Every structure is written in structure tokens, then in C-alpha cells.
């Protein structure tokens, strides 16, 4: 069996429900990365909620490496936290870690991205497919259903990138618009800049750029600076920088997520688990399309 003492020993030591050995309960938050303001906001939301709820929050960061994330989840198990909030680096890679936690009687709640192949206590996230669709609908309206689009993709293999791409591409296919080029820029602003520059060189007739997050969208905005062509840039996330760019007109729109809310709901749901209250299996956090007022 895969049962091992690495997980079972602490479980024996902890009381049912995974409460920590002494005093205030401890909740672990395993982030995929903190190199993106989105996750920093998510963390902030979780920290505030933890303060309000009187629980301790321990944050670990995987720097986008699934193997590192498994290790940090294991470390949280060894630390005997009561609940683990998991923001997976990758949907398919963390099932083992989730199972380890569950064997140690530590419930897992996934945030922002799901885990395939393992049951979790609750999943709290935006509906990314719907978000991709929202972006496509916005462009269809602005461009009257005609035009060529460049798509900047997120880290290949993350569910966010896959789902946003799917929602967007499927919806675009129902219109007269066309995605003429798509390429990953890894959710990163500098890469967003150089990939946009290159794709724009190769595609003269482009009316819009859809970036799967705001960081890449802001890179695209830089690539367009100095060009007098009108190209609509649509991002995703609604980070502070992204919102500012929408207000100034540099970006046409962003599909705003509520990362703070995701973090806050995560802690609140964890608290419910500690207090042995029932929780929803799946919590969808609303998305909102932001445009210039």
C-alpha cells in the first residue's frame, strides 16, 4: 500500500479533524508561486481572514515547481497543520500530495486551480472557462464579430491557461473572428513584451490581443507603445496594474478575478472544517469584466 508512517505518525498524534497539538489551530497555505501579484493578493486575503478568525497561517511557496510543492506540502503535514489550502502548480501533479495529507487526516482545500485524481474537501476558484468566454464576447462586441487576434498563453500545463484558452477559443470559433497566432508567454510581463513584439512583426493585420493574465497583457501594451495602430488588449485577473491600465485606456478590458476573496473564503472554509461544520464541495467566485467607465 502507499500508506506510510511519514504521514500516519503525525496523524496519530493529532486529534480527530486534524487540530494542532496546542492552542490556536494552524492552517497551511501552499502557493504555486508568489511571483505574480495575483497570488500575493490571494495570500493577503487569506492572511487577513486568518487574523479575523484567530488562526495561524503558514505560507509555503513552490516557485512554480510541482516537485517543490509536494515537498512543502509534506513539510506542512510534518508540522501537523489542521487544514491545507493548496494552490497547485499543476492540476495533474499534486494528487499524491493531497492523498498523503488525507491519510494524515488533514483535509485539503484547493484554491484557484483544481487537482485531478484526488477528492478534496472543497474547491474554491473562478470559472476560468467562463472567463475566457467573457473575453471573447467582449471582443466580438467591440470588433463587430470580425478581426484577427493574437493570444498570449500562460504557463503551458496549468489548468488556468488550458481552461481560459478553451473558453476563449471555443467562443471565438462561433464568431467571424480568428486567432491568427498563439504562443505561451508564461504569465510573465517581460515575456509578454517580447512574444508580442515578435508576433506583431509576423502578423500585420491584427485587431486585438488576448492575454491570459494581466502581466502578459501589460507586456503587450509595451510592445504596442509607439505604434499608432489601434489594437485592443484584453487581460485577465484585474490586478492593480491591470485596472490602472484599463482606466487609462491602455488596456481595453480585463476579466477581473477576486483573488483576495478566494484567499479569504479558503481560510473561512478551513475554519469551518476545524469546527466540524459542513462545507460546500465547490465554491465559484464570481468574475467581472472591467472596462473603462
Amino acid at each position: 500500500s502507499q500508506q506510510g508512517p511519514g504521514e500516519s505518525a503525525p496523524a496519530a498524534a493529532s486529534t480527530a479533524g486534524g487540530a494542532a497539538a496546542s492552542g490556536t489551530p494552524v492552517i497551511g497555505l501552499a502557493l504555486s508561486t508568489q511571483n505574480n501579484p495575483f497570488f500575493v493578493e490571494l495570500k493577503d486575503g487569506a492572511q487577513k481572514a486568518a487574523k479575523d478568525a484567530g488562526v495561524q497561517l503558514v505560507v509555503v511557496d513552490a516557485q512554480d515547481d510541482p516537485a517543490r510543492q509536494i515537498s512543502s506540502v509534506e513539510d506542512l503535514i510534518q508540522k501537523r497543520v489542521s487544514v491545507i489550502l493548496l494552490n497547485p502548480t499543476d492540476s495533474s501533479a499534486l494528487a499524491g500530495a493531497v492523498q498523503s495529507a488525507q491519510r494524515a487526516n488533514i483535509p485539503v482545500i484547493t484554491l484557484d486551480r483544481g487537482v485531478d485524481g484526488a477528492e478534496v474537501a472543497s474547491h474554491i476558484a473562478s470559472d476560468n472557462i467562463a472567463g475566457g468566454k467573457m473575453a471573447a464576447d467582449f471582443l466580438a462586441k467591440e470588433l463587430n464579430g470580425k478581426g484577427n487576434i493574437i493570444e498570449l498563453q500562460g504557463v503551458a500545463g496549468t489548468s488556468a491557461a488550458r481552461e481560459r484558452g478553451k473558453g476563449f477559443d471555443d467562443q471565438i470559433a462561433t464568431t467571424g473572428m480568428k486567432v491568427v497566432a498563439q504562443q505561451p508567454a508564461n504569465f510573465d510581463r517581460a515575456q509578454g513584451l517580447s512574444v508580442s513584439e515578435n508576433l506583431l512583426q509576423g502578423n500585420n493585420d491584427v485587431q486585438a490581443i488576448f492575454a491570459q493574465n494581466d502581466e502578459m497583457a501589460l507586456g503587450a501594451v509595451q510592445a504596442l507603445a509607439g505604434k499608432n495602430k489601434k489594437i485592443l488588449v484584453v487581460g485577465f485577473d484585474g490586478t492593480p496594474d491591470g485596472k490602472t491600465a484599463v482606466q487609462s485606456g491602455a488596456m481595453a478590458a480585463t476579466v477581473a478575478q477576486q483573488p483576495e476573496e478566494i484567499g479569504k473564503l479558503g481560510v473561512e472554509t478551513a475554519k469551518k472544517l476545524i469546527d466540524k461544520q459542513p462545507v460546500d464541495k465547490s465554491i465559484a467566485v464570481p468574475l467581472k469584466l472591467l472596462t473603462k467607465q
Partner: protein
Amino acid sequence: MTLQLNWSQAKALFQRLGSVIGLLLLFIVLSVLSPDFLTTGNLLTVLRQVSINALIAFGMTFVILSGGIDLSVGAILAFTGAITAGLMAAGHGMVLSVGAGLGLGLVLGMVNGALVSWGKVAPFIATLGTVTLLRGLTLSYTQGSPIPVTNPGFAMLGGGYIANLIPLPVIWMAVAFILCGFLLRGTVFGRHVVAIGGNEEAARLSGVRISPMKLGIYGLSGLLSAFAGVVLTSRLYSAQATAGAGYELDAIAAVVLGGTSLAGGRGWLFGTLIGALLIGFLNNGLNLLGVSSFYQQVVKGIVILIAVLLDRRQ
């Protein structure tokens, strides 16, 4: 045959033991600071975490001892992991798939060796070139998406236990350590590795056949990287296109922290194991102590710098 130590041997021993002493110190500090640290469960967890890096670092030790460097270990890990997972997804059995993955790792390593020996390309550049190539191949093969693995037997390789206690990856690490240690100390191959790193020209003039040796050395590194790739794929239930990014630096750090000279010709495998454990326990300890992940890197950087400053050779 004599137990008497002369001064320079004593000094060398102390330098060697520097990393062991460092590990002990870290151990004591963490035991005092965190009640969760010194438990069987935690120690075995760390050993399991360390195993991937240790497997790679063992191969890297041979490469560095021979005066080279292998930047492609992470890329080989990712590519062979993807191929192994891909074969299984295509319905092939576990034995065949793993065998193919390991064989591929060996061959890819030998390609590095060929570039370095026959191609006369500097190891840094040769393996840097193969990194780019292999990363591209991995992305093309996986189309950027993870390849999930469902074979339960395969999942044991990285996730199983022996006697319900010791994680299998720890066993692999131990076996690899013993085999590699024997290869290094007990065979002509190992002797020649060190000679090449110490003075390649002298080794060549003594009849050591440099090119086949380098094929073997880089091949071993590729093989062990592929094995690490199999274990990681098993642990992650899936092969990741971007797996292993930056692993070469962790492996090199383990080798150097263990007291092996980057210039080649001087070092030991035990040191590498200690170096890998140092890094692993440091990571684990910082997490257990709840140190903010931002500061974790600062602490690690300082520890690495202090360690190499203490361990430097005049």
C-alpha cells in the same frame, strides 16, 4: 596501512568533514527550534525529498570529478520522464517504459559525452546546447501539457514504502549511493575518472582512453537523471514538460557543498550525499519554522556562501 595522520592529511580530512559538521550543527539547531523536526516521520520525509536531487548529484559528482559539468540533467529528467509516461499512456507496460526511459537517459548523456570528447566542445556549452534542444523536444512531445500516469505499479516507484516505513525513493538513493561509491572507489573506471579530472593530458599519455571514458561519465549522469525522472514522474502521477528546471544548480550545489572541487580531480561521493542532505534539511527546517518563503532564499544564499567560504581550498 598506518593510522598516523600527517598534517596535510588532517587538514584535508577537516576540510572534508566541514560539510558533515555543518549538517550536524543544522541538525542540532533544528531539533532545538522545532518540536516537529526530530521525528522518524519528518526525517524520512526529508530523505524522500532529498532522493531526487541526490540521484542526480551522484552522477554530477562523476562529471565534476572528471573536470566537466552537466547542465542538462534537469532537461534529461524532463524528457525521459515524458517519454516514459508517454509510453505507458500508449499502453506499453511499466517495465518496457521505464527501461526505455532509462536507456534514453543513458544515450542522451552519451551524446553529451560525445560532444565534449569528440566534438571538443566545452562541457558547459555542450550541455547548455542540449538543454535547449531537449526542452524543445519535451515541449513538442508533450505539447506543453502534463502526461498523466495511471499505472498503479509505476506509482509505487516513487510513492511506495518498504516494510511500511521506508519510502522506496530512499531505498533507490541508498542503492545508487552504494553502487556509485563502489564504481568510484573500487573500479578502474572510477580511478580513471579522477585521473582525467586531475590532469587529462597525463591520463591520456598514460593510456587512459579519454573519449570512451567521457561517454561513460556523461552517460552515467544521464542514466541517473533519467532514473530521477522516473521517480519524480511516479511521485507526481504525471510527467511535466517543465519538470527539473534549475535542478542542475541544486545538484551542483550538493556536490560542491560536499567538498568536491569544481576544478575536478578531487572529491568524494559521501560528501555529495551530505551536501544534498544539507540542502534538504535546510529547506525542511525553514518550512517547519514557518520562515517566510521570501526570506528562505536569503537564508539559503547566505548558508551556501558561508559554506563555500569555509570550505574553500587555498
